[in-house]
């Protein structure tokens, strides 16, 4: 069971609307203790905003969208990413999942960003609505299985 823990880490992916910071897409895999994640992600917005405003200019010049580790908690690590149009992405992973490197988190964000771009390209998607995309769902589920594969 203990080994399972490593494989079965938690991950939450959130996409936040650019201005109002309401979640466009929030999903935790697995879905238990979702409420806690909602609180965590909501609180992390403080740091996201702080990072955007303090490092805003430098980041824009470097075209660096990845905000890095927003803050660690005892159980989770919260990472942030912000697009040029100020859409925020937040990924929360279990702290026990120590094998995750920064690069992997970056690539998760890139995938999430690509997937989000696809959603935005959908002419039937009304910008600002919560995202209900099957492709996004599969992708986020894939984020997990990718890592599991890598771990195994």
């Amino acid at each position, binding site marked *: 069971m203990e080994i399972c823990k490593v494989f079965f880490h938690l991950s939450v992916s959130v996409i936040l609307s650019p201005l109002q910071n*309401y*979640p466009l897409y929030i999903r935790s895999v697995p879905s238990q203790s979702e*409420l806690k994640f909602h*609180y965590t992600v909501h609180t992390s917005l403080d740091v996201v905003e702080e990072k955007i405003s303090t490092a805003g200019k430098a980041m824009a010049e470097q075209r660096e969208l990845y905000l890095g580790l927003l803050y660690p908690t005892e159980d989770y690590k919260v990472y942030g990413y912000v697009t040029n149009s100020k859409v925020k992405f937040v990924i929360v992973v279990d702290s026990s999942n*120590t094998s995750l490197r920064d690069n992997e988190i970056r690539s998760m964000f890139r995938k999430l960003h690509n997937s989000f771009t696809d959603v935005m390209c959908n002419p039937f998607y009304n910008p600002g609505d919560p995202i209900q995309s099957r492709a996004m769902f599969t992708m986020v589920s894939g984020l997990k299985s990718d890592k599991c594969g890598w771990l195994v």
Partner: protein
Amino acid sequence: MEPHEEKPIIYTMENKPIVTCAGDQTLFTALYSMLAQQLPREPMEWRRSYGRAPKMIHLEANFVQFKEELLPKEGNKALLTFPFLHIYWTDCCDTETYKATVKEDMQRWQNVLRLHGSTDWLIVVVESDGKKKNKTNILPRTSIMDKIRNDFCNKQSDRCVALSDPLRDSSRSQESWNSFLTKLRTLLLMSFTKNLGRFEDDMRTLREKRTEPGWSFCDYFMVQEELAFVFEMLQQYEDALVQYDELDALFTQYVLNFGAGDGANWLGSFCQPVRSWNGLLLRRPIDMEKRELIQRGEASLLDLRSYLFSRQCTLLIFLQRPWEVTQRALELLHNCVQELRLLEVSVLQGALDCWVFLSCLEVLHRIEGCCDRSQLEANFSHTVGLWTYATEKLKSLGYMCGLVSENGPNSEELNRTVDLLAGLGAERPETVNSLQSPYKKLKEALSSVEAFEKHYLELSHAALEMYRAIGRLRSARLVGKSLAEFYMRKGDPQTAQTFLLDSLKSYTAEGWSLPVTHTRKQIAQCQKQLQQTEDYLQTSALLASDANLTDEERKHYCQEILTFANQASEDKDQRMALSMSAFAQLRELRFRPATATVHVGASLQLELRLCGLMPVPVRLEQLAASVHFTLEQPGARPGLAGSQRRPGVSPDGTVTFPATSPSYGSPQSSAAPALELYEMQDRSPSDNALNSTGVVCKNVHLLLRGNDSTSSLDTPSASASALTMEDGAQMLKTNDVTLLPGNNSIVFTAPSMKPGTYTLRQLCATVGRVQFVLPHIYPIVQYDVYSQEPQLTIEPFTESLLAGLPQRVKFTIVTGHYTVKKGDALQLSNSPSMPILHSSSCSARILSSTGELVGESALSIQASEKVTSISLPVTPPYHTLEFQLEVLCHIPSSSVRAESERLTNGEIRHRPKSRTRYNSGMASIDQKVSIDCPWSIYSILISLTFYTPFRAKHSLLSAGKRKYIQVCLQNVSDTNFRLANQTLVECQPTPSLELLSLNAKAHQLVYSKQCMYSLWEMKWSSELPPCLQCVFAASFSPAEAPDSALKPYSYEFQLERVSTLYSMKAEIQPAVGEQQCRAGTLCRLEVSITRLTEPSESEREDEEATESESLRTTKLMYEVVDNSSNWAVCGKSSGLVSMPVAAMATHKVQMEVMPLFAGKLPFPSIKVFKYLPHSALPMTQPDTDSCLENDNLSLLDKGLEDQADTASIRSRGSIHSLGSGEQQQPRGVPMPRLEPFSPGQVFNCSLARQVLVLPSTDDHVLEINVT
């Protein structure tokens, strides 16, 4: 080396590299202070191995007396006590002494060094002048140096230095000091490099063995830490930190590998159960207790981590990076918790919480100790994490030990507390005496419920304030929420609610549904405890409709409301008003009929689509919509029923309401309301013509509202108390409705008794004592009830009405509130210019207000001389009556004006009730009809516009003396016409005149926009009258109509001065001797003007003739103009001639002209004008100061003739220059005037003649014109 020897050295952090001194101790003692002071003064560059960047380093040294024991034994790796350099001091200056004692001593020293493999030594020879003076016979110093070099430094001559006069203050001694110090520093660094390099190599070798069994991390730790100590000693804190970080990373990796199943044996010692959790200790530079534990391999994971961190912390503070300490501390604490979990170390429940709490506070204390207040405040963002973490841990400890409950801890919890306190051990000596240590805090907090509360609140509020100070409001609210939970546990729902409401606001504003639901549940709990019934019910309603909750929970909250609603209340009037938004949503509202406009008394139905949000069907006793009534403005939009589109209402009469989520402010409703755009049309009130149109955003105030103030609309619980039902208004009601979950359709019948606008204001659902109120219905929903005055309109049946032909017009009567009774009739007053042609087969159609045909009945029309009476069929109110009539508008014949105009189209002849206008080429006639209606005592005047289909022009044509009249008739309408019987007659026939028609056909078709020309020749026997009035008449009908439909058309016009007075002939002849005209050579132009007629009677009387030499003459002015630049007129181009007033009188004028081009050139045009001397002026233009004219007459006359000539030369062919010049003259100065002849009066025989011009012979240039 034994540990007990080591201890005192390490304890003082004043460590310096050890340098031993042998030889003359007194000599050294004398120099010691100087040396110790001078050595660190200048930095030295330290080049490092392994590509590490070189560093500037200030060297210091601890000079100790040389003892053999100081030299490290074989295998001892201690670096701190390692003597890096050995110095031999001597001031021996004579060979004897040297040979006798010093050399021997040095030899011994060298041997000992060699025995221990130490090659870092230096011999210093101190040379002092004082000694030299005393012993003058001694050998020079150099020889001693040479000897020493010879004896000891076989190849390393730099190992021996001289220091001359060290105690003297001379430049020489200074110089020698400097070179000595440099040498010393260099050698020290060399030794460092060599020895540290060797040490590092050994260390690396040791590290590489880590996979071997029996390798111990603790041993390795000690080795690498030794290096760190040396770096720290050299004040290379960065390098020292690197050593610890490497150890940290190595250990972390092992733990991770262990987690992945690859466990190392030595790690087992770290997995021992945690027995002590007294937190980090950062007050000592080195925690020797922990270090010893590590050295002995007895350290637990927490011990190792604590020790490592305390060292890192010390170094970071040396490096002035306190904020990195806080950051690393947080990471460390998280990491330790994870690692213990990963290694499955058994820990007493709560022990880690204690450890973390103590550690957080310890780090914060340490940081506070090295930073001032302002620095701390500026860096809250770095420390607040630790504060929060400590708060969380204390909270969890409190919960665990039963310190949060209202009843206090039970025995099990007390036992736990005791166990936890036991693990803390005794307080450390450093803090025993301080009043506030983390240890004391924790102990106190765990001691009693009150103490816990005090400490917990203190911490929470500190964290809260810090978060607020750095603008992390969300984090602050989360802390607040945690506080709220605490207060709820403590039985203080009032305080809890304050925090919860604050958090809720933030979650709602940002649309986080799960936190909203959760927080709301907690609020509901508080409100229930506080017995805030209204708020509780409101929150319950929101929760009952919350899709995030399970069905059971929703039903529970729903039941709460229903239970309250059904409670019998003594006070019947006391009803609870709650916001409807959580209970049900108004989705759609549909009007039947769709226009939402009905006349008084008509039925209007309103269908509401309500989406029930409750999880169970709810029976409503009553559903009512309050209606606000505004009386119709008199005269406001009287008959525009349905023509005006109401904003927000779709064509099928549906108003759709924006969907809002009740449980939390969904993004659309809370943050960004959707744009509500409406088409706007501004119509002029008089004729309903469109003035302007545009798009209007109706909810700008919502969109432009600041984001921070959004909450006002979206917190129903807060605004619930403000809900009041409007009283006294009209209501739409339905009783006993069951509202099912999901969509419900409810139909109201709207009152329509009074005309006016009805606005739906509120919606109210009553369930027992509870009323759910929708305080504002937005977008605004209105319907109109109108009372309409009867109205009569007459419109052309076709696009436009043509005059002269029978046309159909449509009568429309909108009955409005009037009932057309039997015998009601329309009385049309007849007008002679527009008779009404009534036929027997005329029927009226009756239409209902929705446009359906109700009936058809024949009309009876009676016409008397003055009125036409149309009796109307019986028609109910709010119906439309339509019928058609034929009318004819006579074309008014064109009037002739006194002066002959070239184009006299049908011009005004004012008639009563008709007016002629020109409109897009068609003359129009406004015809007014006066009608008496049965519903009004006043007559209605209705204007109809008819258009004349034709436009006529006439012209007079001449051929010598023969005259012709041409009439052009243009069809300006869109219809094709057949024309017949064109005639031209005089108004007062002159017997001698005959008009001979030259027109062939009797019938001709004139198509739309085409012209027809007719021509008549004038034949006369005697003299022509000066003025001729003619009438052109023709019959016309539409092309396809039968002959009987022919209608007359006439056109009157007047001709004046018809007969030809002069004939003018021009002749161009080549120069003398030439056969043909040539370009560029002068030719002769001869103009002859011949009078053709005897002066008429009228001419004799009023024409400007002057008597001279008994012959009557008229003055004419001629002018030769060539506008096409073919000719150059040489000399005078214009002039005056006096013509005798007699038939066949001829006047010839000759002038020279030069053709400019070769070819057939048209003659230059020659114009002739009447020349009226100024004396003639008063006749045409009566002037007031005629006396002046007479005085200047002769003078001006002469001058003017010259002026006229020169003027015309200056500007060719410009009669206007004269004319305009005349106009610009100040009034009162009499001027001669030119007057053109009427078109028939001068006949130009040579009009359009051409003459052949040959190219000039001497032209060598061939000119080719390409056009």
